[in-house]
């Protein structure tokens, strides 16, 4: 189904906000925003039934442009606010939009425990390997040896994979895409929003201003072209050895499983508690 950008502009963007948005020219955040809107358009739910929560950082600006119920919260706490909304109103579609530093450094604890708890939430994590907005400090996903303002002579720590962390922590649905694969990304976001349980979509994005420039990776176009070369699908990655997968990005659905959902289990606890008191409320 073809969804024209014109439709997205007219139905989902806040008209009283100043456009073009604040992100740098060629920033992947805009591509993720468009993919999210296409996914929501296909879900065909009322704008009032969608809640977007974001933390601090470039990605935190996204909900401010979008005409849904939105929360722009403190650093790393997008998931905690989303948890609160979901517990109070389980019928709403809640999406938390975070950056890599926001989700895994400052909000790392919230992230693993939200995955473990398995609430029916969707988390979109835009991974650009650096803290872009605050001036290019290294984040938990900055690769070994990469340069940033706080690792001028090369990073001495190792990065970790957000998607694999989410699988281990117990998320129901984990997927990964890059900004080059925009159509795949909106299908994955749609699948994640339909999924009952904690769903994580990691999007590998480009920060050519803070990360690309310091590591001589070129501008937006060169970085996005590199994603195209690095990406391998899940089915192809299964046939490849660990050495071949070095420096590659596995895209697609990494994990899809059925697990008990926190809000529904809690409903059962309430019923059990009522039954044990002789059916009185």
């Amino acid at each position: 189904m073809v969804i024209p950008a014109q439709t997205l502009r007219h139905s989902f963007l806040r008209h009283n906000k100043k456009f073009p948005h604040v992100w740098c020219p060629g920033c992947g955040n805009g591509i993720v925003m468009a993919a999210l809107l296409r996914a929501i358009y296909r879900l065909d739910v009322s704008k009032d039934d969608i809640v977007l929560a974001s933390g601090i950082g470039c990605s935190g600006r996204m909900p401010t442009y979008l005409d849904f119920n939105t929360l722009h919260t403190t650093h790393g706490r997008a998931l905690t606010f989303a948890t609160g909304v979901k517990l109070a109103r389980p019928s709403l579609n809640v999406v938390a939009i975070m950056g890599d530093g926001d989700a895994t450094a400052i909000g790392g604890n919230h992230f693993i425990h939200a995955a473990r708890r398995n609430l029916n939430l969707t988390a979109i994590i835009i991974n650009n390997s650096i803290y872009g907005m605050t001036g290019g400090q290294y984040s938990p996903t900055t690769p070994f040896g990469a340069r940033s303002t706080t690792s001028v002579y090369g990073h001495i720590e190792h990065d970790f994979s957000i998607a694999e962390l989410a699988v281990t922590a117990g998320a129901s649905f984990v997927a990964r895409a890059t900004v080059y694969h925009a159509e795949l990304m909106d299908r994955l976001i749609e699948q994640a929003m339909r999924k009952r349980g904690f769903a994580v979509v990691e999007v590998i994005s480009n920060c050519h201003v803070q990360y690309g420039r310091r590591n001589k990776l070129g501008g937006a176009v060169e970085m996005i072209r590199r994603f195209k070369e690095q990406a391998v699908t899940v089915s192809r990655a299964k046939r490849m050895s660990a050495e071949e997968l070095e420096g590659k990005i596995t895209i697609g659905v990494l994990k899809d499983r059925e697990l008990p959902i926190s809000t529904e289990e809690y409903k059962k606890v309430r019923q059990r508690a009522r039954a044990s008191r002789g059916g009185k409320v």
Partner: protein
Amino acid sequence: MTTTSEKKKKTTDSGGKKRHYDVSFYHDWCKACGICMAFCPQEIILADKNGKPEITDPDRCVGCRFCELHCPDFAITVSERTPGRRKNDA
């Protein structure tokens, strides 16, 4: 979801005639990042004197919508060209 081969078929199967597309750029929102120009498979999106995209030969567009999907600023709309109502529209 249409694959590339399906798309190729689509462009010609309406009675053997090639489908035409119009690409409109909303220059007020464009930041001239160059993604559309770099990735256009037909290489028909060129920079104007301000570095913003323009198409001089829209008949060569195959309607893949890569530019529309990857524009971070919602500044590109690709639409299929519909025949004019009157004969003298063309």
